[in-house]
């Protein structure tokens, strides 16, 4: 081997951590956490090195690794990254690292098992992003499923088992369809060329019949649509998000959802260009429904995590809209939305987790006035809420605008409807911001210098308190301590990246460019 197998190193560094934990049953919680941190940290550092060494001008796969596995079946251990997967790999390693830190204190039960799951999960996710062999991809896809279900089902909150089972079955149903699709493509390629291979790049060279493409596309599409998730396959998401522990939600929202979008870009588009064109209008309609629907439903959620979950549905609608707009803006937009959503929603879940640690509830009505008791947290809330609602200058805007623009270029109405969400997003996000960060804690009397109080005494109107009704919860938001340094450590990098991508998306887009141009070339749209 003439070069370092860096992708394998990145992928298996967490696995090695998991193995160490597995073989060291007597490890104390402290040791377990440090090992997990080391595993994810090594992976993260390596992925940064990978990104630094990434040739931003070269199209095609880089850092490829190839080991023949089952040559008779055309199965090989093929790894590689291009502009699409490289940022996602870094996002994965970063969010995993953050998840490890974010779980430091909250997870006190079955720590070793938890971190083993987390590390396994990371390996699975990284494997999904780096594998170029459909067989390998499928293995990683399934590998990732189990630890995630365990994380939800064991370390989640009240209704966790239901959520875990739902998550598992939904995703499994999708991935089975994908398996059918994989076999179909494999067979079709074999019949066409007489070569047995599962190499994605090679399969993409084949030309398949229109009818076959339609069905195979649908098989892949359903798997990814469930993962991403698209309306109406989204109902696992709110449950899974709500019940998962903080780190689980972060990874779920930050990375797992991206696999759907990644799958579209890596498999559906290159393999089935004709079917993509045929299905695109239909998918764009679904995307629009998801965008508006997610935002509207988010508007009336009483539960913070559910709200963020539905907002994810809405955001992921932008991803599919952008991808199936099939033009440069759309694809850039989709990719940036994915990365930005990973950062922003991840951070929002961290923030919810921080609140949950203190209040042991996620009901919005239980909070209020956190700006006073937790000013730093409030600042982060503000930042990420605005990033989520697509404020220019933060990462969300770049992606969303490009995705909408992409959609608008194809179908005017699609752009208009999608744009409508800028209002709805502002509505629900600011509503949350107002209810938990601003105003007063539930039941807290108005400040003495508040003009409302004077108004009340003058007109004998009862002062409108910050929240509804008297104390419903034993824990008073006024007593919450502000974020500690570990929590700050998890949030700060996300904030920096959010601003950076918002202000200077060029860096990211230059990484994406060759890959996106390649995808577009498959559609005969050079230069778009």
């Amino acid at each position: 081997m003439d070069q370092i197998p860096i992708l394998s190193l990145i992928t298996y560094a967490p696995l090695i951590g998991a193995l160490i934990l597995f073989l060291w049953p007597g490890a104390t919680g402290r040791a377990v956490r440090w090992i997990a941190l080391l595993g994810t940290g090594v992976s993260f550092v390596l992925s940064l090195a990978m990104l630094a060494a990434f040739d931003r001008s070269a199209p095609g796969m880089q850092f490829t690794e190839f080991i023949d596995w089952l040559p008779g079946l055309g199965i090989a251990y093929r790894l590689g990254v291009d502009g699409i997967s490289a940022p996602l790999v870094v996002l994965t390693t970063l969010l995993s690292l953050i998840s490890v830190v974010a779980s430091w204190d909250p997870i006190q039960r079955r720590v070793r098992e938890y971190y083993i799951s987390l590390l396994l999960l990371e390996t699975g996710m990284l494997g999904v992003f780096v594998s170029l062999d459909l067989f390998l991809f499928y293995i990683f896809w399934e590998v990732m499923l189990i630890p995630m279900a365990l994380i939800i089902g064991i370390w989640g909150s009240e209704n966790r088992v239901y959520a875990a089972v739902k998550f598992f079955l939904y995703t499994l149903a999708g991935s089975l369809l994908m398996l059918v699709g994989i076999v179909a493509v494999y067979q079709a390629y074999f019949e066409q060329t007489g070569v047995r291979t599962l190499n994605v790049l090679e399969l993409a060279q084949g030309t398949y019949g229109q009818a076959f493409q339609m069905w195979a596309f649908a098989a892949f599409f359903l798997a990814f649509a469930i993962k991403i998730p698209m309306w109406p396959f989204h109902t696992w998401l709110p449950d899974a998000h709500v019940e998962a522990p903080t780190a689980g939600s972060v990874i779920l929202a930050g990375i797992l959802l991206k696999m759907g979008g990644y799958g579209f870009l890596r498999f559906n588009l290159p393999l089935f260009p004709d079917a993509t064109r045929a299905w695109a209008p239909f998918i764009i309609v679904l995307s629009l429904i998801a965008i508006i629907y997610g935002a509207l439903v988010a508007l009336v959620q009483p539960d913070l995590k559910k709200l963020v979950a539905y907002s994810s549905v809405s955001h992921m609608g932008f991803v599919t809209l952008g991808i199936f707009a099939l033009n440069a803006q759309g694809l850039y937009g989709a990719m940036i939305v994915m990365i930005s959503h990973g950062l922003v929603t991840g951070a929002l879940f961290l923030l919810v987790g921080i609140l949950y640690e203190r209040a042991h509830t996620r009901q919005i009505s239980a909070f209020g006035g956190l700006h006073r008791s937790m000013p730093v947290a409030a600042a982060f809330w503000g930042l990420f809420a605005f990033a989520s609602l697509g404020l220019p200058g933060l990462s969300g805007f770049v992606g969303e605008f490009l995705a909408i623009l992409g959609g608008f270029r194809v179908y005017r109405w699609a752009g208009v409807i999608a744009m409508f969400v800028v209002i709805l997003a502002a509505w629900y996000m600011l509503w949350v911001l107002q209810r938990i960060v601003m105003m007063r804690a539930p039941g807290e009397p108005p400040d003495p210098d508040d003009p409302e109080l004077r108004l009340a005494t003058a007109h004998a109107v009862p002062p409108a308190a910050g929240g509804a009704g008297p104390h419903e919860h034993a824990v008073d938001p006024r007593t919450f301590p502000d974020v500690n340094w570990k929590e700050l450590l998890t949030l700060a990098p996300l904030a920096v990246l959010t601003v950076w991508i918002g202000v200077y998306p060029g860096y990211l887009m230059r990484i994406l460019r060759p890959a996106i141009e390649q995808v577009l070339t498959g559609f005969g749209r050079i230069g778009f």
Partner: protein
Amino acid sequence: MAIEVLIFYLLAGVAIAAAAGVVLARNPVHSAVSLVLSFVNVAAIYVMLRAEFLAVAQIIVYTGAIIVLVLFVLMLVQQQDLPEFHGGRPLRRAVGFLLGLALLAEVAAAILTRSLRGAPGSWTPEAVAAVGGNIQAIGRELYSVYMLPIQATALLLLAATIGALFLARPELIEERLAIARRLFTISLAHPRGVDPLQPVAELPAPQDGQLKLAGGDRALVMARSAEEFTEQPAWGEIRR
């Protein structure tokens, strides 16, 4: 009539007669002996079919191991436990014979009307001879095209070994597992998990070395471990 055909009829006739003996014999040991006879004849037919390796494998695995094991078990299981052949259930026997006859008729029809023929393979007798013989040919094929199945089979055999250990001495396995669980098992969802406070579920273990009392006068006294008989350690055994 060629001599091969004659030999074939001889071998096949004995094989079928022995197979019938398996079903008809009252004494299970006789069944087993019949089966061995049948297998040996079938192995000879394999040789006629240019499958020397399989013939030998048949003898080693089937007769040399499997049927020996059956005999073993037959002798370990108490004779009283063996049910009578003529113990009623006439309906099922009738149905069984009828189904057998029906299937025979169908298969005979299928064989006689057989028309499906695949493309002939490349392993002509000359080709087999060129690589050194049947066993070399099988080896080449097996370890190139059938790599995955052979690995899967290996895994299956490993699983079967473990399963057999468990089935044979459940109480021993439980003890071992309890240790292993404390040490190695990652019990993620299981309530018992690594929690040392919870005792490992216990199966009723033989109290006084007597595995079996009920069902007759022939209590078979076995030692659960070598130490029950002597104080000396067994070969290769590590004393805890």
